[in-house]
C-alpha cells in the first residue's frame, strides 16, 4: 500500500482505489475472524487456571493492540498532513479516530468482562486498564475538537497538533500510570500472570489480530471515502460520480 501512496495521494484517484480495496479487506476480515474465533473457541485448549473464561482474550488482546497502534498511525498521518499539507493524509487521520476509539472501548469492555470471573470485579485500577481509559479520553478529545471546528482544513491542522501532543504524552502517561500502580500495589488486587500460551492459543491470537487489522483497514477506508465525498462535493469529479451508475 505504501508503494502506491504517492501516486494515489490525491482524493480523486484514491477514491476509486479505496472502493476496490474495501471488499478485499472486508472479506479477509470476515474469513480470518471466523478462522480465528474457531481456533480460539474450539481448538485452543482449556486453560488449567482460568477455565473457559480466558477465551475472551482472543477478542480482548487484539483490540488492545489495535487501540494503541491506531493512535500512533493516526498521529503519524496527522503529522504528515500538517507538514506536507496533503489533504488525504489528514482525512486518513480523521477516518481512523472512530475506529481507534471503538477498539479502545472494546478493549475496556472485554477487559471488564474478563475481570469479573478472574478477579471478581468489573473494574480494577490496574496500569493497563487505566492507560486504556486515558487513551479513550484522548480519542474522544481528538474527535470532539475536530467536530467543533467548521472549516475542515483548520480542523485537520488543529487535530494534528493535538494528536502529536497526545502521542508524545502517551508514553509519559503510560509510564506514570505504571509507576502510580506499583506504588499502590498494596491496596490493589494482585493479578495472576497472563495464561501460559499453548501454541494453538498463540495461533488463534495472531489470526484474530490479523482479522482486526483487516477490519480496521476496511472501516477506515470506508470512512475516508465518505469524508472525501463530503469535502469534495463541489468538485467536478464528484458531480460526475453522481450521474454515473454506482
Amino acid at each position, binding site marked *: 500500500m505504501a508503494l502506491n501512496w504517492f501516486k494515489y495521494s490525491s482524493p480523486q484517484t484514491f477514491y476509486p482505489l479505496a472502493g476496490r480495496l474495501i471488499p478485499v479487506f472486508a472479506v479477509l476480515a470476515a474469513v480470518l475472524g471466523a478462522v480465528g474465533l474457531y481456533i480460539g473457541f474450539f481448538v485452543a485448549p482449556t486453560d488449567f487456571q482460568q477455565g473457559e473464561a480466558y477465551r475472551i482474550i482472543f477478542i480482548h488482546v487484539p483490540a488492545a493492540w489495535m487501540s494503541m497502534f491506531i493512535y500512533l498511525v493516526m498521529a503519524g498521518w496527522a503529522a504528515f498532513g500538517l507538514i506536507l499539507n496533503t489533504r488525504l493524509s489528514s482525512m486518513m487521520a480523521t477516518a481512523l479516530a472512530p475506529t481507534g476509539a471503538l477498539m479502545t472501548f472494546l478493549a475496556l469492555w472485554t477487559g471488564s468482562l474478563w475481570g469479573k470471573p478472574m478477579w471478581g470485579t468489573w473494574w480494577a485500577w490496574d496500569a493497563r486498564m487505566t492507560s486504556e481509559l486515558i487513551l479513550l479520553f484522548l480519542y474522544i478529545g481528538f474527535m470532539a475538537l475536530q467536530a467543533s471546528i467548521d472549516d475542515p482544513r483548520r480542523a485537520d491542522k488543529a487535530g494534528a497538533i493535538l494528536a502529536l*501532543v497526545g502521542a508524545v504524552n502517551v508514553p*509519559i502517561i503510560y509510564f506514570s500510570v505504571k509507576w502510580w500502580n506499583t*506504588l499502590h500495589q498494596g491496596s490493589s488486587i494482585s493479578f495472576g500472570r497472563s495464561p501460559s500460551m499453548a501454541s494453538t492459543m498463540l495461533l488463534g491470537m495472531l489470526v484474530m489480530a490479523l482479522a482486526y487489522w483487516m477490519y480496521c483497514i476496511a472501516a477506515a477506508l470506508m470512512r475516508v471515502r465518505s469524508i472525501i465525498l463530503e469535502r469534495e462535493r463541489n468538485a467536478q469529479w464528484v458531480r460526475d460520480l453522481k450521474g454515473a451508475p454506482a
Partner: protein
Amino acid sequence: MWDAFVAVFARDVLQAWRRRADWLTTIFFFVIVVSLFPLGVGPEPALLKTMAPGIVWVAALLAAMLSLPRVFGTDFADGTLEQLVLTPQPLPFLVLAKVLAHWLLTGIPLAVIAPVLGLQFGLEGEPVVVLFVALLLGTPCLSLIGAVGAALTLGVRGGGVLIALLVLPLYIPVLIFGAGAVEATVAGTGAAGHLSLLAAGLLIAIVLIPWAVAAALRIALE
C-alpha cells in the same frame, strides 16, 4: 527579543492587575473545591489525611483549567493576538512569556495557598513543604499543557468545555507525580524521585510546548 518577551509578560501582568477580580475567582474556586471534600466524605481525620494530596492536586488541576480560556481568549477577541503573531520576534518565545504570566497569576497563588489547605486536612511538617514544592514544579506544567488546549480551542464552538476534554487527560502525569510526591513523604519513602520526575517533565514541556502553541495560534488566526 528579550524586550518583546518582557513587554508581553509585563502587559499580561498589568492587565491582570487591573482585572484582579477575574484571577481571584480562580483562587477562591480552588479553596472552595478543596473545602467541599470533607463535607462530602465526612470529617474522619485519618481518611482526610490520606486523601489530602489527591484532593488538593485535583482541585489545582481544575482551577488551572478554569483560568485557561483567558490566556489567549481576550487577545483573540480584541485583535492583539494578530499583532503578536505578526511581530518579527519568534512566536514560541512570546508564548513562553504569556505562559509565564499565567503561571505567576495562577500557579504561584495556588502553591502558596495549598499548604494552608493541607493543614486543614491534617498534613503537617514535611508533607506540607513537599506539597508546596510539588505544586511549584507542577503548576508551570499545567500552564504549558493548558496553553495548547487554550490555543487549539480559540474561536471554536463550546470552547470552554472542550478545553477540559482536551487538557485534563494530558494533565494526568502531573497529577500522579505531584500527588505521589506528597503521599510518598507521608508514607516516609521520600519524595525525591517524584519531584525530579516533575522537574524533568517541566523541562521537556518548556522546550517542546511553546512550538505546539505557536503552531496552534497560527492555525487559529488563518
